[in-house]
């Protein structure tokens, strides 16, 4: 019985991990290539979910809503890039933090003003409703498996893109030394725009995929943003591989920590203090992990070369 419960929690952890990867990938690419710290990335994840709900209300078909929401997220991301972000690329990080914080304030509350503060829901597409039986008889929702599958597929595609294509080569070169790439005759502004748009779409995609199993509400991107930041810091800023490893690590540690901290603590203390201390320790776990990683390797597990 504990075995199946463990399996369920591992799957949940994986699901959180791939979700974090989708968000962190864009964040780490944007930072790696443009040296730009975009706190509004979490708000773009939120927007993806809201766009999906809005388009679903119009077209009534999940796939169509997905495509439309992705396009809307992309268009909105590029608009933001054009209006604000491109003027911040050569500013210091403090300015970037403040300006993107301002954008978070705006988006969180604009969403609240347009769609209201009450949580919205998006139905799971009919094909993927229901559950599958795991070994041991536990039921597991299909949609979570779909999320895991999509996330892994995106990760594989991204790996191929970055490793084997010309644009991927430029991205890697940009992460190492953007000025040199520009000096070699590459239109760096266009490269920035492509990377930024791509990152925005990944965050929007994450928001759309998770929307059916969580409540879509204002500010939903804020906490996931912090987790994504932890992921890219542990993975090494600018490294897709690092983001992938760290995302799965954080997803698993956080989920397993929350489910089993009380049981583990009960081995060394009484049940009532364990129930009290357990949740606190579980919520600290990933930050302690990050502190340990940064203490040992201040530039993360897989630092992008050249910086």
């Amino acid at each position, binding site marked *: 019985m504990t075995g199946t419960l463990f399996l369920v929690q591992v799957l949940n952890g994986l699901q959180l991990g791939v979700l974090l990867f989708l968000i962190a990938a864009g964040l780490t690419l944007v*930072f790696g290539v443009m040296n730009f*710290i975009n706190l509004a990335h979490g708000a773009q994840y939120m927007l993806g979910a809201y766009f999906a709900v809005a388009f679903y209300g119009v077209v009534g078909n999940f796939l169509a809503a997905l495509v439309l929401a992705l396009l809307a997220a992309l268009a909105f991301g590029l608009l933001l890039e054009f209006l*604000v972000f491109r*003027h*911040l690329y050569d*500013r210091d*990080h*403090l*300015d970037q*933090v*403040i*300006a993107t*914080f*301002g*954008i*978070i*304030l*705006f*988006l*969180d*509350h*604009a969403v*609240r*003003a347009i769609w209201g503060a009450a949580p919205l829901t998006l139905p799971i597409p009919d094909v993927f409703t229901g559950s599958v039986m795991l070994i041991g008889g536990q039921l597991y929702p299909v949609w979570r498996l779909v999320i895991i599958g999509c996330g892994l597929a995106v990760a594989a595609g991204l790996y191929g893109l970055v490793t084997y294509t010309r644009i991927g080569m430029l991205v890697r070169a940009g992460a190492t030394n953007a000025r040199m790439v520009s000096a070699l005759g590459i239109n760096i502004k266009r490269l920035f725009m492509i990377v930024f748009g791509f990152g925005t779409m990944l965050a929007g995609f994450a928001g759309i995929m998770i929307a059916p199993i969580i409540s879509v509400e204002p500010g939903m991107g*804020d906490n996931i943003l*912090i987790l994504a*930041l*932890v992921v*890219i*810091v542990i993975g090494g*800023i600018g490294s897709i591989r690092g983001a992938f490893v760290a995302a799965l690590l954080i997803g698993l540690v956080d989920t397993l920590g929350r489910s089993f901290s009380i049981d583990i603590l009960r081995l060394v203390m009484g049940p009532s203090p364990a129930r*009290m201390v357990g*949740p*606190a320790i*579980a*919520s*600290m776990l990933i*930050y*302690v992990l*990050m*502190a340990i990683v*940064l*203490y040992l390797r*201040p*530039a*993360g597990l897989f630092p992008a070369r050249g910086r």
Partner: protein
Amino acid sequence: MTGAAALAAAGRSGLLRPRRDIVLPAAIFLIFALLPPFASLLAEQYLVDLATRVMIFAVAALALDLLVGYGGLVSFGHAAFVGLGAYAVGILSAQGIDDALISLPVAIAVAMLFAFVTGTVCLRTKGVYFIMITLAFGQMIYFVATSLAPYGGDNGLTIAARNTVAGLALLKSDRAFYYVTLLCLLATYLFCRALVASRFGRVLRGAKENPARMVTIGFTVRSFQLVAYVIAGGLGGLSGFLLANSTEFVSPAFMSWQRSGELIVMVILGGVGTLDGAIVGAAAYLGAEEWLSGMIENWQVIFGPLLVLVVLFARGGLIGVCARLWRWFGHA
């Protein structure tokens, strides 16, 4: 060179700056000191409440300006110190200890201890890693507070009454509390001024400009930065002590990362690296909140873009803009 010309030259080269530098802080503190009688004259009691909050956050913002403006250390977890100070008051009060002679030192000490432990780790990193690791530590303490079930957890903790001072209910009246807060702000301001002007402050600024050079000269830059971080933490604890006593309530929301962001916004809005700016910024931010939220419900929809505009076009914050206008008119 005639005396007048020498004086003018000295004025241009900044030798006479100290005289002008004293005008703004003197004006600020004079306004704060005279505000309560004016407010009661106008029967606008909310002004006193607003100014109390401004002063409380200004204490924390001053400490943050010490780090950001003078140390070049962009700490995105500053609300954690405020929250720790507030929770120290709340938890002690829940245990029946409600005298400021105990809770104030405890609030400051807890925040300093947390700053010391996390600072040791954070200061190993630089730049954007530092921003993110301080953010993460702040988030960590936030989640610890939300899981403190015996002390209210998510919902926070109501404090039965304001702290007494040596058994006397000195802080009970809002007017008295206002002036105690003003005194704390003044002490913090003077302390920060002295710190910045001292040798310690010069080393800190040197490390911001060029850490490699400071290390080469022979300073252990990281210990200086750690001391600054711990001091800023302690001042954050003081702010938390005041906040808990003013609201008679503590909640995890005091240390959410948005709060840390707001503190940075205050520092930038006023003018980073000026100390005066931290107070001006706290007043501007909380004033804008009060004013805009009276007009529309989601006031951040206006404030967010305003913030972006300040970053893009108003370098040096409000103080910087005013100084530029001043010079512009002066030379016109």
